[in-house]
């Protein structure tokens, strides 16, 4: 899990956390209110369709929808710019991954997508600064996404992403925390989810291999 450190007396940020909690609560409700043990089961195409309806904006302020990624293998994760632990490590890891693919398999069309878990805080401007901090060029190869809370929530629910505010982390700058799953999601060039990883332990060799193989089988 990653943690975000937020000033306790900032009402806006409290609101953000509340929204995140609502988001998580909606996810719980969706799961617990299922009429049978399985609830709605989605095929890969149905999941793609659900994701295709989601509209967000990237770090440049440009509108994002999944159709823009068509033809590219996509690796997606969830971050937030104030996250001090797992997110920077994952961002660093994706940066290296992007470089390796470009050097070793330049013909493989790879798109990276990082979706903010705190969309009200992570405005396009904030994401743009985050991109600059990590030297992420604005070339559409790596989209840092934010937008309406409802849209982010829809993506979280579709992918089973869980995030929740943690307990007060007294002593470290008097801040609050936000915990979330650290998954990477791998999609084929048609926007179909093909694999998930624990983003804290997956090896870059594994990611490179899978991206190359997935691109290969998607061409046949």
């Amino acid at each position, binding site marked *: *899990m*990653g*943690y975000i*450190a937020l000033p306790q007396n900032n009402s806006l940020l409290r609101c953000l956390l509340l929204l995140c909690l609502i988001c998580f609560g909606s996810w719980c409700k969706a*799961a*617990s209110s*299922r009429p049978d*043990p*399985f*609830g*709605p*089961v*989605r*095929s*890969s*195409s*149905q*999941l793609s369709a659900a994701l295709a309806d989601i509209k967000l904006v990237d770090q440049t302020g440009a509108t994002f929808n999944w159709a823009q990624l068509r033809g590219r293998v996509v690796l997606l994760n969830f971050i937030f710019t104030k996250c*001090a*632990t*797992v997110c*920077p*490590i994952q961002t*660093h*890891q994706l940066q*290296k991954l992007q470089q390796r693919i470009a050097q070793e398999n330049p013909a493989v069309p790879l798109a990276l997508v990082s979706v903010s878990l705190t969309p009200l805080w992570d405005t396009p401007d904030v994401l743009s600064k985050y991109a600059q901090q990590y030297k992420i060029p604005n070339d559409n190869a790596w989209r840092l996404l934010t937008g309406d809370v409802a849209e982010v929530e829809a993506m979280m*629910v*579709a*992918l*089973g992403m869980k995030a929740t505010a*943690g307990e007060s*982390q*007294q*002593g*470290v*700058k008097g801040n609050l925390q936000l915990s979330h799953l*650290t998954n990477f999601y791998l999609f*084929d060039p048609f926007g*179909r*989810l*093909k*694999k*998930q*990883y*624990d983003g*804290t*332990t*997956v*090896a*870059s*060799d*594994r990611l490179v*291999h*899978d991206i190359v*193989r*997935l691109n*290969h*089988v*998607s061409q*046949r």
Partner: protein
Amino acid sequence: MRFIESCLKRQLQKKSYSRGGYYADAIRHSRYTRKPNSVRAFFLSLCMPVTLAVLLNVPVAHAVYESNIIGSSGGRGFQSDCGVGSVLAGVTVLTSSNRMDAIGAWCVNVNSAGRWVGEPEQLGELYGQRFRSSEEGVSLCPRDHAVTGVVGTRGTEGYFVNFAGSVALQCQALTDTTRVTGAEVPLEQLGPNGEGQSSEACLSNYAARGLFGAAGSHVDHYGLLCLDSGDVSGSDDTEDPSNPEVPEEPDSPVERPDLSDELFLIPSVGGSGGRAFDEDCGDDSVLVGLELNMSPNRLDAITGRCVSVNPANGEWRGAVRQLAPLFGGNFGSSENIITQCPQNYAVVGITGGVGTGRFSTSAGGVQLQCQALNSAWTTAGPLEILEFYGPVPAQTVSHACQQGFPARSIYGGAGSHVDYYGFGCLAPNTPVNFKDSGQWSPVLDWPVIAIHAVLTPNGEVLTYGTNDDGVQGAHFYYDLWNPETGEHTLLENTLEVDSFCSAPLIIPETKQIIMPGGDARFGEGFNKGIVDAPILDTDSQSITPASPMSFARWYPTATTLPNGEILVAGGIDGAGNVSVAPEIYSPTQNAWRTLFGAADENVFNDRESRWWYPRHWVAPNGKIFGLAGSLAYYLDPEGDGDIEMVSHPGMSARDYTSTGVMYRPGMILQVGGRAANGAVVIDINGNEPTFREVAPPVAGGRESWSNVVVLPDGSVLLTGGGADENELDGATLTPELWDPNTETWTALPDFKLARLYHSTTLLLPDGRVFMGGGGAPGPLTNTNAEIFTPGYLLDDRGRARPRPEITSDISPQRAGDEIRIPYDSDEPIARVTLIRSGAVTHSFNMEQRFIELDFDANREVVRAALPRDENVLPPGYYLLFLIDADGVPSVAKLVSVEVSPDLRVDGSDSGQTNQSDTQNDDESGADSGSNSDTDNDSNDNTDGSNGTDFVDGDFNPDELILVNSPTVGTQGGRRYSVDCGEGSVLVGVTAWTNRNRMDSISPWCAQVDETGRWLDDPVQMDAYGKRFRSSEIGTTICPENYGVVGFTGSRGTERRYVDYAGSIALKCRALSSSVSAAGVEEALTQLGVTGVGESTVYCADDLVARGLFGGAGAHVDNYGLYCLASE
């Protein structure tokens, strides 16, 4: 008279209730004051004295009734009735900190003036189990008082809230043998004060005469057996006068069945010889026990114990009597033993064996099986297994009367010792040819609902799916059942991974059982797919995690490939997305690879629930033949994988509720399913699979959740299922046998309980068939099983037929090998067959397949040729049967078929496709050289790595990142991580530890300046894990201006906790900057107990730790350091 008959029937119901089990379920929650059951209570109070008076010709006695219970349902029922003239004077309880483990009654005789006669004594055994944590307490009323009420609670702490917790008795002074008066005297509470306190009292002015309840590993519930007025007028001051009850129409009495004139002799136990004896208890009597002279190595003498029985209701009449003088001898070593069924039960079977040492041809140990009588001629309900007396032989045998009939005589032969003995049982007059029909056992109690059943490489049956209450959850038990001895071994699920609806099967190369997928982890709700794949080692009986899968999977199918790898496909993840990409587990590398080319959305789809345990078999062409909904396909596991669709003509057997088996190489029988009660034969031997309708099952009701088992002779046994998804209405109790030669069905005698959703059937090495489970959810909670003895093991009267014997174990084999099989048989060997060991759930056995072997035989040895094709004979464990000319199979030997060397996938040449998904990123600076699979796997670095530096190379202070150190502990729990933040370092920990594990951990951080000086006092961060009352808290913090640079730690102790973290001892050095340290190492005091796998870990290159991470649930599963490191 009809009124009396009705009374008798009601008493019968009450007796069944008190014994628990399925038969009791319908009336389990009887409450004296609630309307439906107050009818019964009313009737009991009304009719019992009359019944007894009329039928037993004894004075009217007070009846007892059961109070409301304290606790929840589950467990095996028990009843401790002090008997007429006695009252309940107290209890003994064993309690742990969060539940009640066992309970027993104290009784005392009382005279007509209400004075105690003698001192109270504990009545019989305690019900439940004693744990190391159990504390024993006794609570007794004051002299001349009796228990009249109880205040109690359920347990505490989540899992235990459904067990009983505490008990506090209330007593009143006795005025005669049944009644009390005066103020209540409350006794001290025993046990933890948990959830749902309730107070239960007997009728005003009446005492309690005993306890009842249910218990398994713990006490599920308990209540009081209270005396009532015995007033036949029906007046009852607890009844609601505004709600008068109308007595139900009296029922008919139990009629005498049409019985055979001859007693049915069960096979004898022991050897042969001696003077023959044969004694009969006589009409209207039954055998209820044995008197024995038992020496440590043989049975010296034996006789029966009989009792007369009320013909109408099965209750004992009068005293138990010795049937005849002891047959046999009496020696100085002899111990006189009486083993006897509970009141109103009769002997229905025996488990025993020969003596030990030089007495191997005489009779030895004895264990009786009893069942409740419901008339003088019939029995019903769960078996009551009595204690085993005498020497335990290498192999025990069990013989039983025909189902539903008691024993009435004992026969045998004896001289100085007992050579052999057996029983004569009542039997129906309708001749049954057991050779044709086979025979079902009575219903056996089972510790869990057998949702999953796996035959282990050791020949035991692994079942799991629920706890001992039949409830799903991560705190379930694994049960290992030994079919030879009948013993159960319960293993706790130490990983707290809920493998409910997983896909277990045997890993051929390790003898272990992998259980990929399932429901959830503890504390994370229910019904969410998981990536976990626990591994059960059946030799060490330990459970460890394999590397996690890439896709979370709930309802997946696992298949052993010809190269020994495991294919897992299907299921859904926690968000309800179909797990579309199959993946393959490499046991040699503990790693998974994904088959992107086989990620076919049409096959692994929500339509027709195709994702739900797709039916997969290794086909003769080496691909996987699959059936999902109305689709058929080949899945090619090579390379990236591929799916090739096959035309499916739309037959009368399909869908996820069907069942199927490869009954010959490349020949599949599929039965039932949502489409119809049909049967289809699918031939996948040719280029194109062919589908052919065959005769449907004759008994019907196979649309949902039947099971098929291929038997040693190649016939297929079909059991269970129903017309509707999971409804009793339409459930089929009739098994059928399918003849593969004629492709026709023959109905067999019914079994007892409906076996619907979550039921399983499994072939045992001795040729019998285990059938268990059903429920969670379902109309029945089948924590029970039934065993079928097929007709090939019986003669026409139901006696065991002589069997061929394989006289030595068979060494591991490979495809194409010739097996040498020493044997002993009166008849020539006619067939040699192989059946792959079973692993079944949700009506699909993912392992079983049948292969007939070519062979030659002389009088001592059979030489049989294994198929050369691994696609026909995938590696794994197989039951090898010899079948004689009479069609009788031997007890099978389990044969390991190993992976052929030319197919083996090992680490040296596996290339990219087999790398571990959990390997750490090599950009972290880790050495991912020769041992790349485990070098940086945080779960695999716990042993033998003392002093390991996990990061190597120069560090650049301007480009520091946080990396995970190796961890101590094993995978599990919810992940946690604490980063002290920029400008801070880790300086200490607080740990809550127990004598065998670490329960919780919390790091301490300090802000530092550029020179490494602390700017303020250290601050404790959040704790992860749980703190128990027994936890000891300890805190260790580096000296001022020091930071943590490493630790020495270990896992826990005592098998159950070895997979958790156990200890931590930090290592500190003086800070030389905000990120680095220098100088002499300062080792801090160890917190916790040193367990297994102690290792030492350091951050690299003089850099310090900035936080802590790991996994924790009820305890700390693992921990490691967030170390600063150069990029």
